């Protein structure tokens, strides 16, 4: 008990460096960090393994040894130069994801703002429907219906046919996130802008969105991750390899020899997860602020 109790008050004990208590403090702090670091390593290892796989020489990839005898850094170039289909799938993913993120975020900002700062008859009904849809497996149940619609209007095997249902995937969550973010902004700012003669539209884009920018970053990342990796709809609504997105191609490819050798698959994989990880690394500070500003408290 003594040891754990002093964990929080370590700085005050700094002076008593030689006391036995200090030793126990040190031990429990080491244990604390060691446990967290253990989890961090567990989190990083699988990703590190794919990176390692993507720079192994092809024979070494099949030995079952973790570390290769020879490294081969040419797999990435091979994908770019010799696998034009994969580049096409890459482009599909970019087009579909970009459109989905832009449309979803715009809609969610509009709706979140109206739900918090504008007078809206029927607000409670809208909110309960949004929250209710989170607890219902709409993705599974509506799948056949979505396929029927896209089939009826000829959107099977098209990129736009993916974008439209993708917007709905995260829309309820996105609106609730934006609602949480806008709730942290004082309503008096809206009132003040109104008195100054600003329309609700101008107030939103010139005053509210800049104030809610951390939340918007969370929104962009959440929607990017969903759209970039979406599998079920893409697998169901497309069967033409040239309009398929990267996750479907990776999931339906089983590693073997030849063009789809393991290290090349791993290189494609790294290229596919890199945009998300880089984007997150760049936007990390806004993302963390956004999370603490209410983006998680829906």
């Amino acid at each position, binding site marked *: 008990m003594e040891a754990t109790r002093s964990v*929080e008050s370590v700085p005050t004990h700094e002076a008593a460096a030689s006391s036995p208590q200090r030793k126990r403090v040190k031990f429990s702090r080491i244990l604390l960090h060691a446990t967290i670091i253990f989890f961090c390593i567990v989190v*990083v290892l699988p990703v590190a393994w794919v990176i390692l796989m993507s720079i192994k020489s092809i024979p070494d990839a099949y030995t*079952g040894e*973790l570390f290769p005898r020879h490294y081969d850094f040419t797999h990435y170039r091979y994908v770019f130069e010799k696998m034009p289909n994969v580049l096409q799938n890459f482009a599909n993913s970019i087009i579909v994801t970009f459109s989905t993120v832009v449309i979803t975020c715009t809609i969610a900002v*509009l709706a979140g703002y109206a739900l918090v700062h504008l007078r809206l008859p029927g607000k409670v009904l809208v909110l309960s429907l949004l929250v209710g849809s989170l607890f219902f*497996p709409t993705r599974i149940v509506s799948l*056949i219906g979505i396929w029927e619609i896209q089939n009826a209007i000829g959107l099977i095997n098209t990129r736009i046919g993916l974008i439209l249902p993708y917007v709905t995937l995260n829309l309820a969550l996105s609106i609730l996130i934006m609602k949480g973010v806008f709730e942290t902004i004082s309503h008096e700012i809206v009132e003040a802008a109104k008195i100054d003669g600003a329309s609700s539209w101008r107030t939103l884009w010139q005053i509210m969105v800049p104030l809610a920018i951390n939340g918007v970053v969370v929104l962009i990342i959440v929607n990017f991750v969903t759209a970039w990796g979406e599998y079920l709809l893409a697998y169901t609504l497309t069967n033409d390899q040239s309009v398929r997105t990267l996750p479907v191609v990776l*999931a339906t490819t089983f590693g073997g020899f030849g063009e789809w050798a393991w290290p090349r698959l791993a290189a494609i994989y790294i290229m596919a997860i890199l945009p998300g990880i880089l984007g997150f690394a760049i936007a990390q500070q806004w993302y*963390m602020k956004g999370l603490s500003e209410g983006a998680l408290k829906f």
Partner: protein
Amino acid sequence: MASTSSTVTSASARRWRPSRILNLGVNWVYLVPALFFFVAYMLYPLLQVVYISFTDYRYLSREPATFIGLKNFADALADPIFLQGMLRAATFTALFLPGVIFIPLFLAVLVDRVENPRLATLYRVILLIPAVIPGPMIFVLWRWMYDFEIGPINSILVNYLHLFTPRNAPQWIGDTPLALPGVAIMSWWWGLGYHTMFFLAGLAAIPREMFEAARVDGANEWQMFWRVTVPRLRPMFLILVVLRFGTAMAVIDEFLIMGGLNRGMPTYTWTVYMWHLAFGLGNWPQGYAASIGWLGAAAMLIVVAALFYIFRDRD
């Protein structure tokens, strides 16, 4: 402050009186795009699925669909593949739920104690790495991790720890009892960072004075955890248990990617069966598949209602 703002509101409301009713309606313009997508790609498909679940609609059949009432639902309830699929989904949920709630809670309590702000941020960022990798990409990654030939997990077990030989090494995916635990472990890994952040936000909302007071009263860490932290995080537990129950029972991408369309596999749950019926089996009996989708969803909603009842405020 509050009184001034309310007088301002009423003053401006009075000034705009003639068009006040119109104004209220005009604000709905902000919700029109959202409603369009909800109606077109959520509400309408759901209703259409309701409709075809009462018919013998088969996509590849030339005969027109006829209304057959509740026959699909009666058939499904007597269909051993559907019932076994529900049981498999429930087994997976039971394996998955404890790990995705308690491991992140434990980790959040630890990370919450890190005093160095830079280190605290670094830990959070590292733990969040899986959260920015899309789910299906995680499943592809773990299908490779579990691979019998080249997967690093068996490589470590056989070549480094010498716990197994290539002959008796565990098979993690496919027709094996380890298939569902394997997917559960993967899902813990995937959700670890995100749920830790969730609990950290909850821990940050607990006033520090509560811990101080408990400490003064002589409570140790263990008692403080159970008497202060856990009761305070109760609403969060409810949301997480219900949300994760919903995702776990309705899992499909994981099972399609790591299992495939083989009836014998433990990963062939009711969702995979529904997909297989609608887009692959026979002449695509989508009417029957639709009824299975609704039955699965209804079963889930009953359990969700029960969970809300269990976690209700008892005061």
